[in-house]
């Protein structure tokens, strides 16, 4: 039996416009996906490189799941091209090297966890050992439980395990930690990091900004089917105006709003919350004018602020 082997080659030459600064494991090239009147993705391009954890972030209906379904070959694009491991995603050679965890309403409930794993392993020519799947997905002790008897978090872990059965090079995780408690979520994060450390690539969609921040080497922010920003979590955060100052002061809101580089001021109980690209100069002026100023905090913009700013209606 010949296992799939990684070889650098030029299967993809017709899409050679991308700078050759690395190899891609998956790419969407100016993909548009239209459903009747609704455009789910519009001229969307992105690629995933080996070992990367890429996170697709965006509000509901932004096109995250559509992107994953295209990459899995479950739907075909209205225009544009989709390549996975240099191939058409419907090619079974590509499918033997990928794993997927999708948002599934229900899985056959009268099979045991062990049986589900046994079955999915048989789909792949060189699968992970069952014991290894159980270990990575944290399924010890529930192997003989019927799927229907598991808790929500345990079910998610089984689905994660099924995604890994084929020892894939590229793993798609669509909202993987929904329904998990904090400990289970942290454990899954560790496993995703471990995958990445072994050179596997991961594409992750999530609603939890904290999750994208903690895991992703690159975040792509999607809104209404188009990319609004991409970069490392730090770069995304820097795209919104600088940092946040919080303090209790006697200065009026209007005065603070007039200070240089201040983009926004809001009153929060007895304190003011000030967004500014250059907080040092703002604070200097404020300290000079108000000796009673106290409880001063300066923090980097949270990813959440960046996300809200980027996907705010009217922007882009």
């Amino acid at each position, binding site marked *: 039996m010949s296992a*799939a082997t990684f070889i650098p080659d030029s299967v993809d030459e017709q899409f050679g416009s991308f700078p050759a600064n690395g190899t891609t494991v998956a790419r969407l090239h100016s993909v548009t996906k239209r459903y009747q009147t609704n455009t789910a993705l519009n001229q969307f391009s992105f690629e995933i490189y080996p070992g990367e954890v890429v996170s697709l972030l965006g509000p509901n209906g932004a096109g995250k799941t559509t992107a994953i379904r295209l990459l899995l070959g479950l*739907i075909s694009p209205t225009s544009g091209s989709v390549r996975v491991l240099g191939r058409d995603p419907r090619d079974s050679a590509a499918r033997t090297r990928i794993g997927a965890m999708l948002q599934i309403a229900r899985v056959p409930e009268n099979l045991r966890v062990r049986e589900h794993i046994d079955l999915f392993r048989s789909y792949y020519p060189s699968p992970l050992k069952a014991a290894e799947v159980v270990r990575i997905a944290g399924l010890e002790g529930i192997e003989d439980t019927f799927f229907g008897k598991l808790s929500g978090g345990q079910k998610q872990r089984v689905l994660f395990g099924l995604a890994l059965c084929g020892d894939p090079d590229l793993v798609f995780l669509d909202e993987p930690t929904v329904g998990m408690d904090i400990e289970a979520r942290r454990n899954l994060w560790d496993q995703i990091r471990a995958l990445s450390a072994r050179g596997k690539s991961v594409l992750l969609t999530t609603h939890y900004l904290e999750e994208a921040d903690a895991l992703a080497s690159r975040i792509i922010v999607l809104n209404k089917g188009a990319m609004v920003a991409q970069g490392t979590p730090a770069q995304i955060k820097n795209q919104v105006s600088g940092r946040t100052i919080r303090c209790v002061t006697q200065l009026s809101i209007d005065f603070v709003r007039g200070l240089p580089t201040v983009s926004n001021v809001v009153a929060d109980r007895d304190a003011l919350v000030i967004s500014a690209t250059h907080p040092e100069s703002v604070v200097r002026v404020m300290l000079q004018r108000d000796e009673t100023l106290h409880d001063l905090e300066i923090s980097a913009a949270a990813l959440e602020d960046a996300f809200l700013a980027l996907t705010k209606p009217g922007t882009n």
Partner: protein
Amino acid sequence: MATAAIRPIKLSAPYYLNLFALETKYEFLKAARNRMYSLATLGFPIMFYLLFGVTNRHAGPGFNYAQYLVAGYSCFGMIAAALFNLGAGISTERAQGWLELKQASPMPRFAYLGAKVVTCMLFGVAIVTCMVTLGVTLGGVHATVLQIVHLAAVIIAGAIPFASLGLLLSLLIPPSAAPGIINLIYLPMSFCSGLWMPIEVLPHWLQKVAPVLPTYHYAQLALNVFGYARSSATLIHWEALAGFTCLMMGIAWLVFTRSEAKA
């Protein structure tokens, strides 16, 4: 440009055999553990046989109702097994997203469908075994080994036409409506085709209409085992079932490719 690419892989025969064997094994376990399914496919034929077969042992010269119903209820059970497993089963698994996860894996489609058909056939064997056992022990039915094997072969073959009808239904009806619609289709068809009582006692117009039903041809093949068919010609019935299978598969293929183009 360099792309992380993979060589075309050649998946070997042992890989496919192992995959198909496991798919079938778990498909069968899933069905066997599903009480609703076992009830519809085995429970009803057994109950009906106990009620109507065992109690009608002495019907008349040349006609043994208990023997007639061994064939009739075997067909009845097999049709339920195929329609519910394929029709309701696929419809449900599609709606739940489970089928999508399987489609994203390298598992070939034929394995999924084939495993379900083989599962129906295994249930068919179980149904024939139950009916013959009940018939011989409680119904006073005489059946030679050859007749039993013949009946089992006919019943098993019936998995294919009714599975293809089930496949088509799974593409057309939503999972919540599937059991109801399947009952609406197969209970009247079973009645009109003489699976429950000889077709000769039905109204004359029904007897005329019956030959357009696949269940009629299936019933005639099964009844022929004990000599209760209307004529001993079997080729026409095999042809009718084969034609029905092609028709169902053809329409299913059309519906499927149209829905895929829309996706």
